């Protein structure tokens, strides 16, 4: 565990606290250590820090006033949704406050005619689709933590999900946002089509709380597809499975989801769910195809041909919701399942060009053998977003360091193939070092200049997402010790 050490005691004048209390509702300010402890970390619990206080405003106006006050006193502010992020983006600042947006959780409007929803930032992701369902609509981005994570957090992280291959990421599905800059000034960007003179929406989505505090989000809703078919194809080698994914993509098909699990992940999932995979499966590809009935039949036949042509020896097909759920269960529970194989695992999140899948998986396998550390692969193969899980035991002296070395090698591999250090989990505090490998000093300086344009005094989530030039050391990953993650019952990745 990496506690952020206190550098110096911060004493804020009593007037600051008096003003803060006056802005917030009676139960809206947490300062007792026992109350504040809950907010010490997010979904990456190896990093912890205790904030001075946690503010829980109920209204947009209160958010603006809190920000203006903190700006006046130079107090750092870390905005927080549900705290399910996986890179420490919501890790508190020891000399600042946490600004929880969880109570701004109203669905302001569902407009079925124009297919939009206007939301406060604390609305849960899955609540949007639930509210839109009576109109035959849904909100497409579906991060695995969707039953808990909030729209505001999704905007901050540019959340993806299994279906973003076809329906896009958060950045493709947000039309407008209202947000405060650090000085407490409200801005509105985007519009009916999202177009604007400068695409500030693009900057804000995925900015990890560094540029502004979002208080209202207008999202696009899409019609539910008339039909969905899921296919599970079993292969005798990982290379064949990866090649089949490249082939499906290479044919120009766009399944709603296209996922891959290797042998280690399969055996873990099978033990965990009790649902057997075809005997001798060394890898499994899950493909979900949706659309109108006529297109689906053509696409399913095409995908089947490609899977069989690349060595699939068994294919299961599911059409009803219940059958599809069963087919997906192993994939959805793969992370807790793998967590039972070893005391610790280290989760990576690189993305590579999809044509490089076979080569990169082979190189990861080779490095895994060289280091003597098992690596399980369960990932969004269709969009090239890898999640290698390195299994280890932190109690063995020196093992963690070797794991980090292997992780760094894997990230360098992703970069060498033209990829990125983070596909969807964000940089947060965890991948700051990797940013140095991906960007030049001039590029990092540009990020800092943009940050200053929004937040000249560096008060919003300071120290996250963009490293200072002084910092560049080694790429990092994510550590999970003895399966201890907050929200451990949530589906992940």
């Amino acid at each position, binding site marked *: 565990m990496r506690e952020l050490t206190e550098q110096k005691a911060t004493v804020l004048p009593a007037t600051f606290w008096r003003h803060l209390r006056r802005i917030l509702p009676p139960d809206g300010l947490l300062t007792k250590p026992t109350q504040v402890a809950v907010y010490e970390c997010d979904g990456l619990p190896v990093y912890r820090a205790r904030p001075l206080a946690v503010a829980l405003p109920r209204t947009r106006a209160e958010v603006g006033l809190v920000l203006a006050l903190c700006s006046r006193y130079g107090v750092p502010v870390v905005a927080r949704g549900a705290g399910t992020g996986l890179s420490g983006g919501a890790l508190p600042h020891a000399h600042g406050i946490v600004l929880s947006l969880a109570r701004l959780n109203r669905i302001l409007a569902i*407009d079925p*005619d*124009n*297919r939009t929803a206007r939301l406060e930032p604390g609305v849960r992701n899955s609540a949007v689709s639930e509210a839109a369902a009576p109109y035959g609509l849904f909100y497409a981005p579906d991060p695995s933590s969707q039953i808990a994570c909030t729209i505001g957090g999704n905007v901050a992280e*540019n959340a993806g999900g299994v279906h*973003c291959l076809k329906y*896009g*990421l958060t*950045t493709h599905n947000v039309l407008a946002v209202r947000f405060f*800059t650090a000085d407490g000034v409200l*801005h*509105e*960007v985007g519009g*009916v*089509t999202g*177009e604007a*003179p*400068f*695409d500030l929406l*693009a*900057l804000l989505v*995925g900015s990890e709380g560094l*540029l502004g505090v979002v208080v209202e989000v207008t999202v696009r809703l*899409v*019609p539910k597809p*008339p039909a969905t078919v899921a296919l599970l194809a079993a292969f005798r080698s990982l290379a064949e499975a990866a090649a089949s994914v490249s082939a499906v*993509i290479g*044919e*120009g098909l*766009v399944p709603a989801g296209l996922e891959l699990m290797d042998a280690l992940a399969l055996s873990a999932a099978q033990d965990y769910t009790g649902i057997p995979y075809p005997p001798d499966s060394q890898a499994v590809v899950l493909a979900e195809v949706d*659309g*109108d009935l*006529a*297109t689906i039949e*053509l696409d399913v036949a095409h995908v089947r041909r490609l899977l069989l042509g690349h060595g699939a020896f068994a294919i299961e097909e599911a059409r009803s919701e219940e059958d599809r759920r069963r087919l997906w269960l192993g994939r959805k529970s793969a992370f807790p399942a793998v967590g039972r194989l070893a005391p610790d695992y280290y989760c990576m999140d690189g*993305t590579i*060009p*999809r*044509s490089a899948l076979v080569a990169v998986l082979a190189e990861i396998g080779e490095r895994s053998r060289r280091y003597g550390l098992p690596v399980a692969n369960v990932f969004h193969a269709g*969009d*090239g*977003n890898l999640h290698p899980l390195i299994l280890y035991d932190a109690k063995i002296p020196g093992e963690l360091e070797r794991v980090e070395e292997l992780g760094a090698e894997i990230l360098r591999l992703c970069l060498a193939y033209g*990829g*990125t*250090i*983070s*596909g*969807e*989990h*964000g940089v947060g505090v965890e991948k700051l070092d*990797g940013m140095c490998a991906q*960007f030049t000093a*001039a*590029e990092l300086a*540009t*990020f800092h*200049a*943009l940050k200053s*344009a929004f937040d000249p005094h560096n008060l919003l989530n300071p120290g996250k997402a*963009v490293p200072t030039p002084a910092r560049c050391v080694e790429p990092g990953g994510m550590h999970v010790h003895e399966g201890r993650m907050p929200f451990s019952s949530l589906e992940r990745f």
Partner: protein
Amino acid sequence: MTHDDTATLASAVRAAYERQTPLEVVGGGTRRHLGRAPDGQPLSLASHSGIVEYEPSGFVVTVRAGTTLHDLDAALSREGQTLMADIPRFSAASTIGGAVAAGFTGPGRPYTGALRDSVLGARVISGTGQVLAFGGKVLKNVAGFDVSRLMVGAFGTLGVILDVSVRVSRCPEDVQVVAFEMSWPEARECLKRWEGDLPLTGAFYHRGVLSVRLAGREARVAAAVRELGGEKGRPEAFTELRDLAFDFFQAPGSLWRLLVPPDSPWDPEETLIDWAGAQRFWVTLALAQEVREKAAQYGGQAVRVWGPDRSEGPWAAPPAATMALLTRVKTALDPRAILNRGRLYRDW
């Protein structure tokens, strides 16, 4: 023609930064009539051209800004592919860099996405002459602020675009257009019903006729055409709309795009309805203020495309505090306002 002009271009921008003399960034010069008239010496990207990287099986192409869309289309079509976003090709000289800077997307937008949706990465020269790369060539990438998408539609005021990585898709096996005479409210109901059920890739409403483009697998398009009935239409109508090439767009006055909620009432003065109702084209002699108010009345925005008065920019200025924020963003990337000065707003 393939040529990497990065070093020359970067030193030209650096020199302009040092002398504080503005530059007008020019590709094929086919979009110079869009936006306000910029100050500055032309900086041509025409010779910075060619495909940097294209792996057809990855459905991403990285291409230099001065490459003409004509050449890019030819290279992609040899692999049976096409740009995913439906972007204008004003003439054979139009470049990909100009297209990204202008940020326009044609009638395919509601179905195949906006141009900004398919931009994965960009290399740019900042206003100080530095060469910077943002984003990348993979579909999911959350490392760093999304500066490459910020360049789309900024009219070259935030950086000189050197090359871009954009998504491509498979060419449809077949494209058919069918047309129906009906009222706009009827047309809108039909479009809502058909979306997701039919292989729609475009639909516009003009003079009492709804034209619908169906594209994709041959068998699927044929079935859709049978299912829908209607009159057979011209597929070229959709490329003419995409390229803003209809005669009536050239009528006296200014051409405006009104971006409004799709259910906004239809005003017969509007020339054409696109994007399932969200975009209305309007050629009018009315004052800019009136047009902008009309759009605002429905909760939308008016974007000026072209017209005789070059002092009027595409976008109205946002409220003062937000305008100040935009100015700070501009300054972060182009501190001396040398890139396309005045193209979007006066003085920067």
